[in-house]
């Protein structure tokens, strides 16, 4: 934020004619207000929009969560009853378990892969820009398209994956039937889409690491591998924390991929094998039309994400062993 500094300087440069005290006073007041309020004015559009489209819906959701709120019909105040029910709802905890499971299965390999990819892209090579932009290609594909294509790849009877596995004598797998297989299939979709994005973030961070560190290490005889572990990785720590937190937020809101994997089935499989929390929220809101309960579920999700991000942050900070 350099704006205030600049404004202050402008104030110091103001001419101050001594013969017109009244005008000087008003000009001075204006300038003071300018200094005081302009910065707030400049940032206000974001906060106003946030208040309208972020804070208000959130608080309203909380209000709805305290009611027995049906789309058509009753809207009685029930206090915390919805939250009490969520806490003892096995279907809810099943969805939490699925979401956490898919988050781990998807995110851990994804971030590792992104790191390796970024490290590879960070070297000098032909077609550098093309390759760097190439990893971003899955990002610009519509998520629905990705999910549909992958769902077909993982189809039991007509899918390419089972066809190829068949060459190696593997029996046809019903990907949607088992928990592990559905999680795996969905994680592949997620990773396909987001690995390149994370790789680019890491790449940008890597390029801001001073070259002379590597040169000095090279002179001391450190191998490339050694350089990666002792220079690149520690220098990337803040970036890794950033991606981990963003991934937590995104991963816990996983929705489109599992929904389309189940062909739009809000319950996420015959035994809810891959129903995520957002899908459960959606099922309550638009399958059962129980908005109060759905709102309670989404608030629980908010708390879980807050918690998860915090844990992530603390853990990575400790692993890093220093200030983030």
């Amino acid at each position, binding site marked *: 934020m350099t704006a205030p500094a600049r404004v202050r300087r402008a104030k110091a440069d103001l001419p101050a004619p001594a013969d017109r005290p009244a005008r000087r006073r008003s000009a001075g007041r204006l300038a003071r207000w300018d200094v005081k309020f302009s910065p707030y004015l400049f940032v206000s559009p974001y906060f106003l929009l946030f208040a309208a489209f972020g804070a208000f819906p959130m608080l309203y959701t909380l209000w709805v969560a305290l009611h027995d709120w049906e789309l058509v019909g009753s809207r009685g105040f029930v206090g915390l009853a919805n939250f009490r029910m969520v806490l003892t709802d096995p*279907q809810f905890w099943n969805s939490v378990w699925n979401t956490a499971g898919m988050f781990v299965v*998807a995110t851990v390999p994804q971030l590792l892969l992104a790191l390796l990819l970024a490290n590879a892209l960070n070297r000098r090579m032909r077609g550098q820009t093309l390759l760097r932009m190439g990893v971003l290609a899955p990002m610009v594909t519509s998520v629905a398209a990705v999910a549909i294509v992958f769902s077909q790849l993982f*189809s039991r009877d007509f899918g390419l994956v089972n066809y190829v596995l068949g060459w190696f004598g593997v029996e046809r797998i019903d990907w949607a039937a088992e928990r592990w297989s559905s999680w795996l299939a969905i994680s592949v979709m*997620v990773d396909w889409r987001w690995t390149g994005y994370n790789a680019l973030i890491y790449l940008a961070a890597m390029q801001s690491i001073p070259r002379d560190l590597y040169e000095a290490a090279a002179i001391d005889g450190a191998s490339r591998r050694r350089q990666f572990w002792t220079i690149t990785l520690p220098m990337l720590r803040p970036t890794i924390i950033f991606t981990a937190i963003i991934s937590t937020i995104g991963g816990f809101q996983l929705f489109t991929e599992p*929904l389309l994997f189940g062909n739009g089935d809000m319950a996420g499989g015959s*035994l809810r094998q891959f129903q995520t929390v957002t899908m459960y929220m959606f099922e309550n809101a638009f*399958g059962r039309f129980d908005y109060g309960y759905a709102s309670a579920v989404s608030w629980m999700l908010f708390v879980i994400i807050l918690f998860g991000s915090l844990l992530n942050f603390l853990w990575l900070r400790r692993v890093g062993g220093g200030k983030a």
Partner: protein
Amino acid sequence: MPAPHFRRSGAPHGEPPKTSGAHPRPAGRARRRGRLGAGLAAAALVLAAGCGGGGADDGKITLTVDTFSTFGYEELFKQYEAQHPNIRIKHRNVVQLDDYLPRLEKWIAAGRGAGDVVAIEEGILTKFMAQPDRFVNLLDHGAGSLQGNFLDWKWRQALTPDGRYLVGLGTDVGGLAMCYRTDLFAKAGLPTDREKVGELWPTWDAYIATGQRFAAKVKDAKFVDGAVNLYNSMLAQQASQTVGHTYFDPSGKLVAAGNPAVKTAWDTTLKIQRSGLSAGLKSFEPSWGTGLKEARFATIACPSWMLGVIKENAGAAAAGKWDVAAIPGGSGSRGGSFLAVPRGSEHPREAAELAKFLTSPQSQIAAFKARNNLPSSPQALDDPAVKSFRNEYFNNAPVGEIYAGGAKALKPLYLGEDTNPVNQRFEDALLAVEQDKLTPDAAWTKALADAEREAR
């Protein structure tokens, strides 16, 4: 029209935070349910909904009609516009019933957003009948004199018990038959003539026996598509032949556990599935459509509206290969819809006129010819054009005779408010058995417990 059509599209309408994978994405368009363009379509719908119902600048009245699946109204709209120069019709169609229902319910609850004329499937009608004043009373618009144009029970389904408020006018009903692939039947050494095929299976046990003969000869195809479609048809059949309701009795009480129709349909379906006759495909899913195209199964339980779905999915290559025979165990009613005018319509009078036109016997005959939606009007059912109608795609089967013949004897089914979600839990449990995840007994217990949860 009924049941969920295959080819669902888009992403959800509700728009929960569209973030997945690792990062909050730049705000996307999107709707649930998959397939491609529907995302855009949905967005367009939402926009359209926002400004629907308004008049046009050239003084014409624009009437918006909301439908799902296929109603076969395209030609009728053109005809109506030609006869009424001051009316313009805007048609909004949602392919999947499951996508359409929540949207419709939102519109009706909010009192705006819905079209001037909306299609209401019978499963959701019960819910709306509890609050008729959200719709225009069609008796106020001269619909009372039309009672004779509809099967009596179809008329009464959309009429309040006191007879003073008519929410909707009937469009179609869903008679049952069995579709089968003649080339696969020939391969199995079974008769292919539709009369003889019907004689193969007077009962479901005979159907199983036929399936076993089929399975002994044909290895690369199964006898039936899957448990879900079979169960739904059988449930409709059993329930309409016996107690007249499925999961909920007319007082709205959940009676899934005690209704013999539910248990019979469940047991028979699983018996067929356990005999190894099922291809294990869930109706209306993409792989079900692929299975149709690839001839992976030989029979499908076939409500009249299913004919259009089969044709659409099996494609031109299968023309003439499917045929229609009688269903084991006798007729039944599965599916069917109504047209209503929501209270929010700005042109209730014109909208009511349009609904009356679209449900007239003549229009029902036209819709039957276009999409094989079985009329709910006795005049239409008796019409020679319907009775003698043959479907070229289905090996020239006399579908008019097959479906219309028994239509007047159809008995109505009472469906409770929460029938759709409860039925989904039963479908899930059946799937779990097909996936070898649950034993039939455990699945039955689970379905009942989940049904309690949905009905809560």
